[in-house]
């Protein structure tokens, strides 16, 4: 095993003969530089009533990808902002319809849900195609070999389950069994849904002419989610204690004499926000770390494997700092936080190959331009 020093110049020939190569990802993004990009992006986005957000998105993604290097070579992002703008206008229309349709009538709501079930799988597939076809490394594009029937097979059950669980309670708020069932129907299949989408995303991805593959990991997903749920409970208990504590303090200070029996609203609201933050800080780092690790350990690109040496407690510590500083600065620390998250989560990944990864796609690596061209004309980036 030879760990490639990130600064060493990339050398194709020397490594070709090696039996096994281990290459780390390196991230050079910088908080202060990204802050400038973020401020200018956000200002122009605001002044153009959101139209610039597509250009902002391209600049941000380019910044992230070009600062990410594998074996000394940077990734690149090629999306055309106007294509993203088209996609976003469509997504905004759908989202608006979904949000407000039920305010008008049940019929309108059901029509919108049905439309989403028809369009949703296609959108999801297109978004993957767009994202990957516009990402490159060493001059070669990634790709997504999505086909419509498969997209429906994968995404439609998830959409139906999700809608039935989120829309039913609106109609049957009085019917306790229905509400309980619908809550369970969201929670229990969540790992299954996540796994299903990840498998589809990774198994259909390609680099040049090489296809990625994904070995199913469903049980492992459930195990990670189970432990994550315990952390959610832990965060919830600590949050409840924090609420009780803040009420107790208010009472003890004599700010509100009967606080213990009749808690003031401020204490309840701030306590709830604090509890929500605690739940996030406790559970998200573990879930994010383990799911990233699990997903990539199941992924192969020919003979190339991916290893994620990520530590949940380090991500937890990082999250704690980032959340605190972001809240304390009313959001202005966010760009720094984003770069710290990106650096840790990218640099913990290692690419292992029997043959050097850089050889992938070397031979007859023709890019099928037709499908990608369509994706480019109707760019979608839904952040999935």
């Amino acid at each position: 095993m030879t760990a490639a020093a990130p600064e060493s110049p990339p050398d194709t020939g020397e490594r070709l003969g090696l039996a096994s190569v281990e290459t780390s990802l390196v991230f050079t993004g910088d908080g202060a530089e990204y802050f400038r990009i973020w401020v200018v992006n956000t200002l122009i986005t605001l002044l153009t009533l959101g139209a610039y957000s597509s250009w902002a998105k391209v600049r941000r993604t380019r910044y992230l990808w070009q600062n990410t290097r594998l074996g000394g070579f940077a990734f690149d992002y090629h999306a055309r902002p106007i294509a993203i703008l088209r996609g976003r206008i469509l997504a905004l229309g759908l989202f608006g319809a979904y949000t407000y349709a039920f305010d008008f009538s049940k019929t309108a709501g059901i029509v919108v849900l049905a439309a989403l079930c028809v369009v949703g799988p296609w959108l999801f597939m297109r978004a993957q195609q767009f994202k990957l076809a516009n990402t490159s490394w060493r001059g070669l594009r990634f790709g997504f070999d999505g086909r419509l029937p498969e997209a429906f097979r994968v995404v439609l059950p998830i959409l139906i389950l999700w809608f039935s669980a989120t829309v039913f309670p609106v109609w049957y708020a009085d019917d306790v069994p229905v509400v309980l069932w619908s809550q369970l129907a969201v929670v229990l299949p969540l790992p299954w849904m996540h796994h299903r989408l990840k498998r589809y995303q990774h198994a259909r991805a390609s680099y040049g002419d090489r296809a990625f593959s994904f070995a199913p990991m469903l049980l492992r997903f459930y195990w990670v989610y189970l432990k994550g749920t315990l952390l959610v409970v832990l965060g919830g208990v600590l949050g409840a204690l924090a609420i009780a504590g803040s009420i107790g303090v208010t009472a003890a200070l004599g700010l509100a004499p009967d606080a213990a029996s009749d808690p003031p609203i401020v204490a309840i609201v701030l306590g709830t926000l604090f509890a929500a933050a605690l739940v996030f800080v406790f559970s998200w780092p573990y879930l994010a770390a383990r799911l990233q690790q699990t997903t990539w350990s199941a992924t192969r690109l020919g003979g190339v494997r991916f290893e994620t040496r990520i530590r949940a407690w380090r991500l937890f510590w990082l999250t704690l700092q980032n959340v605190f500083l972001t809240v304390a600065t009313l959001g202005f620390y966010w760009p720094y936080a984003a770069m710290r998250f990106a650096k840790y989560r990218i640099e913990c990944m290692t690419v292992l190959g029997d043959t050097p990864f850089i050889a992938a796609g070397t031979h007859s690596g023709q890019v099928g331009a037709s499908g990608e061209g369509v994706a480019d004309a109707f760019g979608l980036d839904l952040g999935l």
Partner: protein
Amino acid sequence: MNGPFAAWRFDGRTAEAHPASLCIDGATLVIESGGSTRRVPIAEASISERFAATPRMVRTPGGETFEVSDGPGFTRAIEAAGFPASAVVRLQGWGPAVAGALALLVAALVLAYTHGVPAAARWAAHETPRAAQERLGQALLDLLDEKFLAPSALPVDVREAVETRFASAAELAAPSHRVRLEFRRDRPTEPEVDGPEPDAAAEEDPPADGGEEASVNAMSLPGDIIVLLDGLVDVADADQVFAVLGHELGHIVLEHSMQTFYRSAGVAALAGLAWGDFSGVAAGVPIALGLLHYDRELEDEADDFAVRFLTIERLGPEALCGFFDLILELEEEMGVDGIPEFLSTHPDTSDRIGRLCPEW
């Protein structure tokens, strides 16, 4: 002649990296790779944006990509050759401009919140077709009826008296509106009367204690609907009921429920634009607090309308203030702490009295 800069050449069809070197000769790139030399006008090549630590990607019209490792050095050479970065990129790179952009960003956010969103909501509310408003109001009333409200138990003559008095005044105060006055009572069996009220401008509502007390409440819905609850008619005198209906008519004439509807969408969009980088959870807090502020503003506007409405019957603002006083007494009776103003949908009741009836 500037350079040479070491680069890797990629043909875009394979991942193979070929060593190359780039020089800048006036407005031309001189590319040397694999023993051959080519000249490409810089204007015809597409060059990636400059960042501090990234390589520069140079794409030629032929579809080749050159990854120039010394990004900053190459940047200097390109810019010296007369190809400056775009205005936005230069803005990003210049400290004072970024500081100015930051100040402008904060100012734009504040202005959009205080003026932009309310103005847009007012316009959108005015432009919304009546049919759509009526549908929306009816859907909301159906929902309320299904979950929280029951038909009124007031004697018919009481209802008729309230309705006749209000209708004749409303005809003068708002001739272009056909207001539907709906009498309801809250359902005694339901312990929780929080109500969904997504955009109903709810009137004073001391939390119903275990459902024993009838809600002292009235609300306006889109489509010119006013819902009046029995509890209010029970505790308030006729002038006070008239004043409250004037307040609700104010919401209707000023198109408040549609405005609230659009304002919530506007604030969500604003928060999404400003904090779109990270997800909705963080953006939710400013949205919630921001909407509460808007609601209080609208309540004050409706109060002012009610005062003008009362003059139709030559009544002073005392009728409305008397109702607020009643609310204060009820709150005291039930031991409800005053909700701090920034967390409430309504202005503080004593403040409302102070504003409308200074000599009270």
